[in-house]
């Protein structure tokens, strides 16, 4: 049976947008925190300082080795011939080694400046190794890797961590009969859920690890459950609780009982997928997440490129070979010809070190540019250019492509850097580098001042990071140069000690004199050159730093101007948009107002209809007019739940209208009553006048003819007259006639009086009943709706009066009117009879008189 009771439900619903905003603030704070840290790491890791820092100690160590070698040479320099041969061999070997060192420097540059490149290759290799164990064959491996890359990019998660989690889940879930797609879905859902919850990288890793362990052992409890409760969003716990049919608080106990099994987890994550997908779709990527995806894409790109993999192997082999050459170098240095080494070092090592630095710079420029451009391109549709998130980077690209293309060309083509890469001396290098910096910053300013809208403050941080990078680079080159000089000085001192210093001279050996002479001359020149080199380097570094600072300041000023212009334009656009919204709101308000009016109209119509029904109902129950109208008002009050104030207004209005109505009714009734009284009065006057006339005529006849008639009848001739007429009976007849006349007059008057008495009563009753019927008669059905209409509109009194006129028939019933007409007719007939009698008596009077009073009489 359907319930007829009442249920009032109250639920706590927080406006979703509020929670979302608070969540967004939290997530933004976390993302910003990560972003700041990653920027710090980027600046540190991208620093070429690493390269030069590695290279310089290497050179120092080389110098120290040479120093040790020079000390050892005393023992081994026994044969000039051997020395000459060794010298030549050493020279060749040294060149060879320097080529290796050059490779090392290049690799170091790549590792330092393009750490992401090597890291990408390494990550890809690790990824492949992990997945090989859970896939069959190269084809399946490739398919799974592609799917994992897609999931990682979709969830903006580092691919290696995700693959590790997938590997664990696959091992556990495949045993439980899960398909590969289900495992992928499972991995995606947990990654998205953690992203929605704003979990940090560490928390994400922890939860994924714990969940993997839980799946492996077959149930979720203890530490694993705790990690999930603390770091996963509440929806995950709710999904688990729903599968088990309990509340979240009971999960701990059920976990202890071992009831949160693998199948429960599988079902929970299947149930959770739709919710998580929906919530995740509402999140926006942060800049740091964009770089995570960029990293994933680099990993995928480099990893999948076989040529790059081959290059990596070759580089790795080069590193190993170079490393193997170092002991050989030391061993060979232990031969003779250190002076020649020094000379070669003077021209060769310096150049090589610069080449290493230049390579580092080149790589830095290209990799940095590529990273920026790659990030922009990869996330062109996700990155929002404007604060209102209406314009994407892709939109900006379309607008500014020409400028961007030029910028890319400036960054990536080698022409502007040719001078730098071909410079042999530090001064040339710095001059060239400054030129390149100028070109670079100008290109950035021109090309990026449009693109800067994309990054906003993030771009400023990137440029600031690059500025720091450049300064560090210059500074480290200077330090490297210092250390280089120091290392040469160490070598020089060692050589001086060997060939003519305070140490024991090596004489008498073939070639020694040559070596000594040459070395002495070279040492002096070297010393001077080194000092000059040191000074020039310091000066150049200082100038370069100043110029670089100047260029960057200039770039920042330009950027600042561009930002200001952009901000002004944005403010103008926002104001225009606000105005547009205002206008739209006004239009909307007007529309709403229109709708309100229409609703109000509809509501009123409903009210009228409902009220009419109520009134009809009340009329049917013979209620009074006031009750009828009040029923209508009560109905309106109840149906529409209007406020008390409004209801009072309606009541006041109704009272006013009723008052006016009743005034109209009262006036009409009064008028009709007055008219009826006039009619009756007129009738009675006419009747009275007619009777008076008749009686007056009768009196006149009697007064004129009565005496002779009486004399004739009662005089001396009377009896004979009477006898003539019929004996004594005549007198008696005459007397009887007169008596009958009197009787007839009296009876006529009495009859008239008797006749009019009920007429008066009928008229009186007719007034009363007519008015009552006017109120309760069917005519009120016409009056009712009209009266209701007057509640809403002005009163049409003519119409109302017309209604009452229609009710007139009821005020004077037909039988009453007919009675009055009959009475008039009766009186008229009576009058005619009396008139006839009068005429008869007048015409017969003389004959009677003569008969009675004449001689015969």
């Amino acid at each position, binding site marked *: 049976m359907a319930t*007829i009771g009442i249920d*009032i439900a*109250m639920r*706590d619903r927080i406006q979703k947008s509020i929670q979302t905003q608070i969540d967004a603030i*939290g997530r933004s704070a976390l993302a910003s925190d990560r972003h700041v840290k990653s920027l710090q790491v980027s600046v540190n890791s991208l620093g070429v300082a690493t390269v030069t820092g590695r290279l310089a100690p290497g050179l120092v160590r080389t110098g120290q080795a040479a120093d040790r070698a020079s000390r050892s040479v005393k023992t081994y320099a026994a044969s000039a011939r051997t020395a000459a041969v060794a010298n030549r061999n050493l020279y060749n070997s040294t060149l060879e080694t320097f080529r290796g060192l050059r490779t090392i420097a290049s690799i170091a540059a790549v590792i330092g400046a393009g750490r992401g490149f090597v890291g990408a290759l390494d990550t890809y290799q690790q990824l492949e190794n992990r997945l090989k164990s859970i896939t069959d064959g190269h084809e399946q491996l490739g398919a799974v890797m592609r799917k994992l890359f897609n999931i990682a990019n979709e969830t903006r998660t580092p691919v290696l961590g995700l693959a590790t989690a997938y590997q664990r889940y696959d091992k556990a879930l495949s045993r439980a009969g899960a398909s590969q797609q289900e495992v992928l879905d499972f991995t995606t859902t947990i990654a998205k859920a953690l992203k929605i919850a704003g979990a940090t990288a560490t928390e994400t890793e922890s939860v994924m690890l714990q969940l993997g362990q839980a799946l492996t052992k077959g149930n979720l409890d203890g530490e694993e459950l705790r990690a999930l409760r603390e770091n996963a969003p509440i929806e995950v716990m709710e999904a688990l609780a729903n599968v088990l049919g309990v509340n979240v608080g009971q999960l701990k106990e059920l976990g202890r009982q071992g009831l949160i099994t693998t199948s429960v987890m599988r079902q929970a994550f299947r149930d959770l997928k739709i919710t998580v997908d929906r919530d995740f779709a509402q999140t926006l990527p942060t800049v740091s997440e964009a770089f995570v995806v960029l990293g994933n894409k680099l990993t995928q790109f480099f990893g999948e490129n076989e040529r790059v993999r081959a290059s990596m192997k070759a580089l790795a082999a080069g590193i190993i070979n170079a490393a193997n050459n170092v002991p050989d170098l030391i061993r060979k240095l232990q031969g003779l010809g250190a002076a020649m080494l020094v000379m070669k070092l003077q021209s060769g090592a310096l150049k090589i070190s610069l080449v290493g630095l230049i390579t580092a710079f080149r790589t830095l420029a290209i990799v940095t540019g590529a990273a920026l451009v790659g990030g922009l391109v990869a996330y062109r549709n996700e990155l929002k250019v404007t604060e209102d998130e209406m314009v994407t980077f892709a939109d900006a690209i379309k607008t500014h492509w020409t400028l961007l293309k030029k910028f890319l060309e400036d960054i990536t083509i080698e022409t502007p850097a040719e001078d730098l890469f071909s410079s042999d001396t530090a001064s040339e290098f710095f001059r060239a580098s400054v030129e390149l910096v100028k070109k670079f910053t100008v290109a950035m300013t021109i090309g990026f001042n449009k693109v800067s809208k994309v990054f906003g403050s993030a771009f400023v941080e990137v440029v600031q990071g690059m500025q720091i990078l450049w300064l560090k680079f210059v500074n480290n080159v200077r330090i490297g140069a210092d250390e280089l000089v120091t290392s040469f000085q160490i070598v020089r001192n060692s050589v001086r000690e060997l060939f003519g210093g305070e140490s024991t001279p090596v004489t008498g050996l073939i070639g020694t004199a040559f070596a000594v002479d040459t070395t002495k001359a070279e040492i002096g020149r070297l010393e001077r050159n080194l000092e000059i080199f040191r000074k020039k380097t310091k000066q150049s570094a200082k100038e370069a730093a100043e110029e670089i600072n100047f260029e960057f300041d200039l770039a920042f000023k330009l950027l600042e101007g561009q930002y200001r212009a952009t901000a002004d334009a944005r403010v103008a656009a926002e104001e225009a948009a606000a105005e547009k919204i205002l206008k739209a709101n006004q239009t909307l308000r007007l529309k709403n107002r229109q709708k309100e009016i229409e609703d109000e109209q509809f509501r009123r119509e409903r009210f009228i209809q409902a009220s009419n029904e109520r009134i009809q109902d009340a009329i049917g129950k013979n209620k009074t007019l006031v009750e009828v109208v009040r029923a209508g008002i009560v109905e309106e009050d109840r149906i529409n739940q209007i406020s008390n104030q409004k209801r009072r207004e309606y009541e006041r209005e109704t009272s006013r209208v009723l008052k006016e109505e009743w005034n109209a009714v009262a006036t009409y009734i009064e008028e009709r009553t007055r008219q009826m009284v006039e009619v009756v009065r007129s009738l009675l006057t006419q009747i009275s006048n007619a009777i008076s006339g008749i009686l007056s005529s009768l009196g006149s006849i009697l007064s004129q003819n009565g005496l002779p008639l009486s004399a004739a009848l009662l005089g001396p001739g009377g009896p004979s007259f009477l006898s003539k007429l019929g004996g004594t009976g005549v007198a008696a007849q005459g007397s009887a006639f007169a008596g009958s006349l009197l009787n007839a007059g009296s009876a006529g008057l009495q009859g008239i009086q008797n006749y009019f008495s009920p007429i008066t009563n009928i008229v009186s009753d007719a007034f009363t009943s007519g008015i009552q019927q006017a109120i309760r008669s069917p005519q009120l059905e016409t009056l009712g709706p009209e009266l209701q209409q007057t509640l809403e509109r002005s009163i049409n009194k003519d119409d109302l009066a017309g209604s009452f006129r229609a009710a007139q028939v009821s005020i004077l019933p037909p039988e009453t009117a007919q009675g009055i007409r009959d009475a008039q007719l009766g009186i008229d007939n009576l009058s005619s009879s009396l008139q006839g009698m009068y005429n008869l008596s007048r015409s017969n009077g003389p004959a009677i008189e003569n008969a009675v009073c004449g001689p015969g009489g």
Partner: protein
Amino acid sequence: MARDLRSLAGRMRKLNRRLEFTAGKITREAASIVVDVLVDRTPIDTTKAVSNWQVGINRPVRTIIPPHFPGKLKSTEYASTRETKNLAEEKIKEYVKHGVIYVSNHVPYIQGLNNGTISAQASGFVEAAVVSAQLRLQNLKINVSGLVAP
């Protein structure tokens, strides 16, 4: 005051949790107001109708109970209304968050009472109770640490 971005994120998480807690509190407050008005305005004779205002958490109470204190011509009005309110308050206290509080009455003639077709008393008291709750809740001032009296 957040010390750094990470602690700010933590504060935001706490704020959301507190918000949910506060929402639950407001819901309890609303339910109390509704029960008060319903009980005070329900036409009374034997007190059966008023005794059947019952509170359920997450599901409505459909059972019909005898009057708490049976009477005649409002003789037990005070005792029954007080008992109805006490029982409702006890039940409302059980509610925390993320659910529904039902205030139900399933005596067969409750609709008639509310429509005013049975009793001579004013009709529409159910709607009046809801409106009263809305009006009083509009004046509630809320902060994250709890409710402030209107």
